[in-house]
């Protein structure tokens, strides 16, 4: 039943809840220097002087450098990047734990964080006592906790352990209780740092469902290394490296960029062959081609495609087999294609072009990379190309995911 109120809300959908303008944060490499700088800054502030925090002093570096973004109401922003990229520092600044040294953060609404669940739990006290204390630390009032108490313990599902000191809890129970308290704060802005993969299977399922609920009414900033979850939950993704934004955009594009940039560095450095046990192979390349003959890195789910392979050789090899393993971004083998028993059997001197057509691909929407091997009687060569990652996206029609099975692809091999 749409009411006037709903209309107002939908009009406000565009309201900005987080506005980050050119923020930077510096850290000191040495603890002793940090101590001295800290004392100087504090003294300056007390006497009403600016601490000139926008300049680097000796031994300092920018952990976050000139980052700007906005988050609208109800949006979910993912932050990805390699370790030490500044993700957690950025989140801590949004949470008000660190002050930015440059720039400005404006937050509209109550901010909550799922960062370290269970921080503030006292091991000697019972679960019940800790719920109240933790709730208070997270900014809940007594009435609020009283009201939500039942839901909190129900969600944590710790049963008789409620009145036992939390030091007797298993680590899973500890986190469950912490998560349960934190998640019931119901903030307008929620900051999440890589904690959703806690607890047993049952609890993870519960968390995922709770997240869906939260997603609908909260703006979220989500830091994670789990790219699959990022692409499911987030509307937009920021890629950070060395404290600065590398790119920003829709999840799939940014994730693909991330993988191409950071997960396949070795390939970028050696664009032809990394390791070869066979002498005579001089050049190699591979790329994906769509049904209508375009070179691509993006395939549509269920549509056939081909893998074009180029090999330059100084010798002739007979009885050769090419094996291509397609691996998901999580490192799981999705399928293997091999040329054994096909028309392609030998490599001639000079340039060889081989076309491998996959007619009924069973690759679910995800990001993949291809590892190729050339097997001959003389040995095996690992073939690497700068193909990098490619993506399989949903087709226009909603497709059910297919249960992939290895060796299930229908493939033809042709020598061109």
């Amino acid at each position, binding site marked *: 039943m749409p009411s006037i*109120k*709903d209309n*107002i*809300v939908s009009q*406000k959908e565009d*309201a900005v809840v987080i*506005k980050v303008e050119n923020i930077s944060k510096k*850290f000191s490499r040495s603890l002793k220097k*940090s*101590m001295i700088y*800290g004392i100087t*800054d*504090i003294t300056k*502030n*007390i006497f*009403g002087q*600016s*601490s000139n*925090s*926008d300049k680097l002093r000796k031994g300092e570096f920018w952990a976050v450098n000139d980052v700007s973004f906005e988050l609208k*109401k109800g949006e979910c922003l993912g932050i990805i990047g390699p370790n030490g990229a500044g993700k957690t520092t950025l989140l*801590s*600044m949004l*949470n*008000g*734990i*660190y*002050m*930015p*040294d440059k720039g*400005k*953060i*404006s*937050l*509209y*609404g109550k*901010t909550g*964080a799922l*960062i*370290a669940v269970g*921080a*503030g739990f*006292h091991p*000697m*006290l019972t679960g019940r*006592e800790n719920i*109240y*204390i933790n709730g*208070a*630390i*997270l*900014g809940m009032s007594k009435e609020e906790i009283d009201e939500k108490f039942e839901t909190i313990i129900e969600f944590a599902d710790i049963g008789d352990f409620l009145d036992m*000191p939390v030091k007797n809890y298993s680590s899973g129970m500890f986190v469950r209780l912490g998560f349960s308290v934190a998640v019931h704060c119901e903030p*307008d802005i929620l900051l999440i740092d890589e904690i959703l993969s806690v607890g047993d299977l049952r609890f993870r399922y519960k968390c995922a469902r709770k997240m*869906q*609920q939260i*997603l*609908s*009414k909260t703006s979220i900033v989500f830091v994670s290394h789990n790219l699959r979850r990022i692409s*499911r939950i987030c509307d937009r993704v920021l890629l950070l490296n060395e404290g600065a934004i590398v790119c920003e955009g829709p999840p799939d594009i940014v994730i693909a960029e991330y993988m191409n940039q950071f997960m396949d560095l070795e390939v970028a450095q050696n664009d032809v062959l990394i390791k070869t046990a066979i002498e005579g192979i001089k050049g190699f390349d591979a790329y994906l081609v769509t049904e209508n003959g375009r070179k691509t890195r993006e395939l549509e789910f269920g549509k056939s495609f081909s893998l074009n392979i180029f090999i330059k050789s100084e010798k002739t090899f007979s009885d050769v087999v090419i094996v291509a393993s397609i691996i998901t971004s999580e490192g799981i083998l999705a399928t293997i294609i091999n040329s054994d028993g096909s028309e392609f059997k030998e490599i001639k001197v000079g340039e060889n072009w081989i076309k491998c057509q996959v007619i009924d691909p069973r690759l679910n929407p995800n990001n993949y990379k291809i590892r190729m091997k050339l097997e001959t009687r003389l040995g095996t060569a690992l073939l690497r190309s700068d193909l990098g990652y490619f993506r399989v996206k949903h087709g226009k029609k909603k497709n059910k995911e297919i249960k992939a099975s290895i060796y299930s692809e229908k493939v033809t091999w042709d020598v061109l």
Partner: protein
Amino acid sequence: MVSQNKLLCYITKPVVRLMDEHKPTIYEPDRSIKQGYIALWKEIFRDMKESSWLIRQLFLRDFKAQYSQSLLGFFWAFIIPLATLGTFIVLRSSGIFTGGDIMVPYVIYALLGLTFWQLFAMGIIQSTNSLVSAGSMIRKINFPRESLVFASFGNAIFSFLLQMIIVFILFGVYGFIPHWKFVVFPLMAIPLLLLTCGLGFIFSIINGVIRDLGRLLTLGLTFILFITPIAYERPDTGFVSMLAGINPLYYLSVAPRDIALTGTLSHPLGYFISCSISILVFFFCWIIFHLTETRIAERI
């Protein structure tokens, strides 16, 4: 399947509070300077009001945890001050010092003074360590850090109240009737508490940055107690007498006893100055604490 769920939630979206009602929370460098001191105090008192329930919870947490795995439980709150009292009684009875002209049994005399000293000593040690011992919390959760310092006084105040009970028991045992002005005795703890709290603010931060302070303090307090004439009569001349003359702790600890025993202050000027200093120290240190608490998280 997942995206369908997302869609469903979108349709059944509940009415949410509108953001425009709130003033934004802003984080930027040197914000306090841009805001000015008046806005700063407003912020301090608002934080304070909002966190009174948090302070109570933090105190209860430490209090319960402290005694939960102990056989004697909160009797420890009696035992420690009584041990200090015992030390002085032994020292006196073995003739190491002789009290001057005191008109009550020495036990009562010493306890009345030491009660206040203990309030200071316990308070300052616990508040100095309050930030460091909550380190992981400070690094992960954003909440008013003042509450940690305030909550750390709970134990000292509890112990103070217990000692008041002992004072009454001793009055009964010795048949001593205090001056009627004794009723203000507990209220006279307030200036001392303000001073302790102010110092606690500063010490907790210094201890957060330089850990040496916590150790130094435990050592120093015993020394200060012995050179401050609280459990013995102030000598007329000499180093100790001179030090006591400029030590607000001396006036603040001794004045309540004067009231209890005689109904008058032996050093009204000293007491008045000490009270003023306490109030100034409290507010000055509080604002410093508030200004610096955001810099503390990255260093604790």
